[in-house]
């Protein structure tokens, strides 16, 4: 079956399959949708399918090409993700350092093992011009075989402007038999000049039941799988991370709820403890905690609007009692505004704002959204 490792995503699946079967696959695709929904999985599966020597109806899994794709080490596939400058000998050129090559090789091996696992280079913030120059060199060589080469640029919203401009050349004058797949959470995150040259394919958030089923198949107890699938909010990469470190998932969950609790409680000692815990986290983890905070507030909004009949829709069902108490105690709260403030805080963090200051500002804004007055 084509794209066999992709979960759900019937709309995207049908669109991609039809483009391939009708020989209408464009040279540039933009897979966009929520994190952990399978965009990079679809790109890898597409490349595997297109390069299978037998697979008109889907990759055979037996030929040399399919075997090479099992380790993601295929001469017709290039995987680009944000790197820190230190991974390259020179950020202007694409040559990797020894540590960079070794770390990337480990990331690809993990991704090959579990396609829904996250492929993140530690400290990798941006896709650098050197990486795109290396991609241009790779694309400029004619393939030995008449099979398409596929380049996946994961998190293309992280393309530095100069890198994006260099990529433009490839989009404007693509070599024959070459397909570029960009992934991003939102179309708007991509440079307009690149976006306008790509065929967009939308990916939906994974259903909680699908994530739960996946985690159960991967060895989680049913109750744990249910709890983690709700906590990860349809982001299967995060679900897998949580499944491999359940204590971290619990810690993040508690911290996310405490951000709301201590923002409203205004107890300086408790808030100091919270701040200390917050400061120990890296940027990626802080963003995860805030996203969980946002889902907590979203649950509160749903419960406030729909009452007990909405219980089945809630993500934090395991903390239902606490959630109900929270909603009852804050009858005037504007939870939608509170969610917006959390999203804003995420943007500030991504824009390199100071983490402790961001949390302090967020706590004041949450208080204001819930109580409609300034905190004392």
């Amino acid at each position, binding site marked *: 079956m084509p794209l066999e490792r992709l979960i759900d995503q019937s709309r995207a699946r049908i669109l991609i399959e039809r483009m391939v079967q009708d020989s209408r696959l464009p040279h540039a695709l933009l897979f966009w949708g929520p994190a952990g929904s399978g965009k990079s999985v679809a790109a890898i599966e597409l490349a595997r399918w297109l390069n299978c020597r037998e697979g008109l109806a889907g990759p055979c899994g037996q030929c*040399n090409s399919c*075997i*090479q794709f099992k*380790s993601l*080490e295929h*001469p017709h596939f290039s995987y680009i993700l944000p790197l820190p400058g230190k991974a390259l000998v020179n950020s202007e050129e694409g*040559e*990797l*350092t*020894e540590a*960079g*090559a070794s770390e*990337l*090789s480990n*990331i*690809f091996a993990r991704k090959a093992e579990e396609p829904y696992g996250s492929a993140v280079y530690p400290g990798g913030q941006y896709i650098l011009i050197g990486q795109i*120059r290396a991609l*241009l*060199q790779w*694309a*400029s*060589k*004619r*393939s*030995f*075989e*008449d099979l398409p080469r596929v380049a996946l640029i994961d998190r293309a919203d992280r393309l530095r402007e100069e890198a994006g401009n*260099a990529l433009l*050349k490839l989009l404007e004058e693509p*070599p*024959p038999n070459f397909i570029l797949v960009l992934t991003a959470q939102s179309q708007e995150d991509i440079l307009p000049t690149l976006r306008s040259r790509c065929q967009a394919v939308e990916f939906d958030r994974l259903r909680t039941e699908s994530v739960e089923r996946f985690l159960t198949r991967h060895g989680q107890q049913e109750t744990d799988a249910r709890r983690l699938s709700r906590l990860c909010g349809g982001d299967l990469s995060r679900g897998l991370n949580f499944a491999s470190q359940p204590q971290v998932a619990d810690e993040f969950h508690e911290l996310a709820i405490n951000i709301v609790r201590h923002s409203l409680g205004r107890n300086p000692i408790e808030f100091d403890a919270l701040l200390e815990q917050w400061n120990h986290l890296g940027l990626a983890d802080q963003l995860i905690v805030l996203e969980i905070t946002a889902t907590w507030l979203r649950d509160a909004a749903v419960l406030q609007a729909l009452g007990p009949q909405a219980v089945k829709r809630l993500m934090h069902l395991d903390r239902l009692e606490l959630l109900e108490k929270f909603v009852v105690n804050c009858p005037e709260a504007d939870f939608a505004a509170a969610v917006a403030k959390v999203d804003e805080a995420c943007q500030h963090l991504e824009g390199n704002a100071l983490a402790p200051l961001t949390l302090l500002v967020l706590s004041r804004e949450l208080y204001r959204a819930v109580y409609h007055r300034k905190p004392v």
Partner: protein
Amino acid sequence: MKFKVSQEPLLQGVSKVSGVVPSRTPLTFLYNIHAVLSGNELKLTASDGDVFLITTVAVEGLEDGSVLVPARPLQDLLRELPTTELSLETSPEQHLVVNTSKGQFVIPGEEPSKFPPAPAERPPQQLSFSADDLKSILDQTTFAVSHDELRPALTGLLMQFRSGEMRAVATDGHRLVKLVKTGFQTSVTAEAEVEVIVPLKTLSLLTRHLSGDDVAKVDVYLASNRVVFDTEKLIITSKVVEGRFPAYDAVIPKDNPQLLKADVERLSSAVKRVSIFANQINRLVVMQLNPGSMKILAEDPDSGRRGQEEIEATFDGEPFEIGYNAAYLLEALRHVPCQEMEMMLGSPTAAGILKPAKPREGEDLIMLLMPIRLH
């Protein structure tokens, strides 16, 4: 797989192919050499994904088979071993076991199917050159190949077979070199036209091999998607660059009536001295041409430095000035294969054509240099 071989020929074979093994890549299979034993012939293949180097070593074969083994530890071991008889075999876990009279060395290998196969078929279009001729072609042309990834078609040497002659053309937009070679053996009919753009890295590997090993003849096979150089000791199979090479004939001036003749060595020395005083950004040196003499001038208005030198030259046109980037001019002069050079000039803004006064037999070489506009 099991065979016996002396240390020296095996080290030579491994060293020949390991030159292409990348030192840092996330594609770990490329760190390996693919060794295949068939009868008494051990075929070694290494690649960087774009270029495959293949060589064979004569061995005493005991059991056919293949293995994928990391190039670096194998080469390091062979370098450190004395000239002695070795016995090599693979274990069921895909390890390569190297036995000497006094030691045993085990190198963990990998499943051979992980290594991508090099295209097996030879393209039918064959040209044969003596090693010296091909080296001369590469020496005189590859320096002008562009390094700009945004113009991929210029990042290789155009090898074009047309009207029974082979043209090698390189350009980076500032200069262009065209060498037309005749008098070689070929299986291609004179009417046929074949052309490929060969990547610079492939040519560097070939040049290194032609310089370092005792090679007499090179067979070149051209196809639309690959080029093969077979020297009998090493086969280089390379991808070619995508894209269309610019219509270079259109930029070569047809009418440059003024002829300058000068001694290459004297002109180079003078340009080197004067260019010390040139602007460090555009490296501009001006050639002031008069019948019977030529003056080279440079000036850096920022620092107030200036220099000039007069050298003997013959010039048959009206007096005029033309400016060039000293680095490009020197590089072109360095690749003139004889004592005297000729330069055909039109106007101060038109490209100048530089040629050897006595080209090598069977070669027609021209180098085109774009001038820098003065004032």
